[in-house]
C-alpha cells in the first residue's frame, strides 16, 4: 500500500469526527425536557386533554399552527372542529395560550432542548408572567 500511513491517519480522523456527537456527550447528564402543564386553566379541567391527542400535538403542533395561520388569514376560517367534535377558536393567543399560560415552562422547555428558535413571539404576545420584553 503506497502512503498507507496517510490513509490510516485519514481514516482515524474521519472516525473521530463522525463519532464526535457521541463521544462529546459521554459523562454528561441526560436531562429530559419536562414541559409543565401546571397552569390554573389546565388545573381546572376535569380531563386534562389538549385539542388533539398528546402524541399528535407533540409531533405536529407546528404543522397545525401553520395551517391555522393560512385558514384564518387567507380564508377567514376561524373555527376548528377537533377529532372529538369539540369546537375551538383558531388563534394562538386567544386559544392555545389561554391554557398554556406558562410559555417558559411549556414551550421553551422543549424548544431549548432541541435548540429551535421559533419566531412566534416576535409578534404574538406571550401571557403575562415574564410579559413584555
Amino acid at each position: 500500500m503506497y502512503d498507507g500511513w496517510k490513509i490510516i491517519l485519514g481514516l482515524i480522523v474521519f472516525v473521530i469526527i463522525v463519532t464526535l456527537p457521541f463521544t462529546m456527550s459521554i459523562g454528561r447528564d441526560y436531562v429530559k425536557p419536562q414541559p409543565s402543564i401546571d397552569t390554573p386553566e389546565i388545573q381546572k379541567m376535569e380531563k386534562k386533554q389538549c385539542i388533539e391527542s398528546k402524541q399528535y400535538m407533540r409531533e405536529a403542533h407546528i404543522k397545525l399552527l401553520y395551517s391555522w395561520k393560512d385558514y384564518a388569514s387567507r380564508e377567514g376560517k376561524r373555527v376548528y372542529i377537533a377529532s372529538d367534535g369539540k369546537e375551538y377558536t383558531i388563534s394562538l393567543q386567544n386559544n392555545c395560550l389561554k391554557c398554556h399560560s406558562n410559555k417558559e415552562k411549556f414551550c421553551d422547555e422543549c424548544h431549548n432542548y432541541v435548540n429551535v428558535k421559533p419566531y412566534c413571539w416576535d409578534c404574538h404576545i406571550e401571557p403575562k408572567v415574564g410579559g413584555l420584553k
Partner: protein
Amino acid sequence: MITRRDFLKISAFASLIGLGGSLSIEALEKKQGPQVLKDLKALKGKRWAMAIDTRKFKTQEDFDKVIKACHKAHNVPEIMNPLHEVKWIWTEDYEHSFPGTAEHYISKEVKERKFLLLCNHCDNAPCIRVCPVKATFKREDGITMQDMHRCIGCKFCMAGCPYGARNYNFLPPRDYIKELNPEYPTRMLGVVEKCTFCNERIDRGLLPYCVEASEGKIIFGDLYEPNSEIRKVLAENIIIRRKVELGTQPMVFYII
C-alpha cells in the same frame, strides 16, 4: 371443480363488494377527523366598502376617538418621528387627501375640513400586484389582507400604494406601544403593516372598530348588495374618492 364461468362470476361479484366497501368506508371517514370552518356569526359580503360622512366629523375629539379605537386594539406603535411613524388610520387636509381632484372653487367650509384616511382596500390594488411573495393578497370578500408571517419587508407595496397607507416598521414596534392588547399580536421589526378592514372582527360577526367608535359617522357594508345601507347612502349623497383617476377602484368613499 369450479368452472371458468363460475370463477369469473365470483370474482366479479367479490370485486364489486370490495369497491362498494371501500367507498362506504371513505364516506364514513370523511365525516370524522378535524374540520376547519367559518364562524356561523361571520358577516357575509362580496365587496366590503366604507363611507365616511365627513360632514359629521366636527371636532378633533371625533377623529381621535376613532383613531384610538383602531390603534389601541391593533397594537399600533405610537412613534412621533414622521419618518418612522406607523398609522393605520389618520387625518389629512382637503388638498392632500384629494390631490389633483381637489376642487379649488369648492366651499370654504369643505376646504377646511379634515379627512380620515386609511387603506382603501382597492378592488384593483397595486400593492397586491407588486408583492413578490404573495404576502399581500385579496380575500374573497374584497379585503386587501397581508400575511405578516410571510412579509419579507421589501417595501415594494409601499412604493406601489398611491395612498400612503402602508408603513414600514423601522423601529422595534413593541417599544412604542403603551398598553398591549393581549388579544391581538404586534408586528416585528422590518415588516410592513396597514389597516386590515378589521377582518378578524368581520369573521366573528362584528363591525370594524373605527365604524363602531364613530357612532354612525362611518357606514360599512357590502357594495355588491343593492339593498345595503352603504349603497343607500352612496346613492343619496355627494361622494368623492381618493385618486380615482389611477384606476385602483378604492373602496373607501367620502360623503361631502
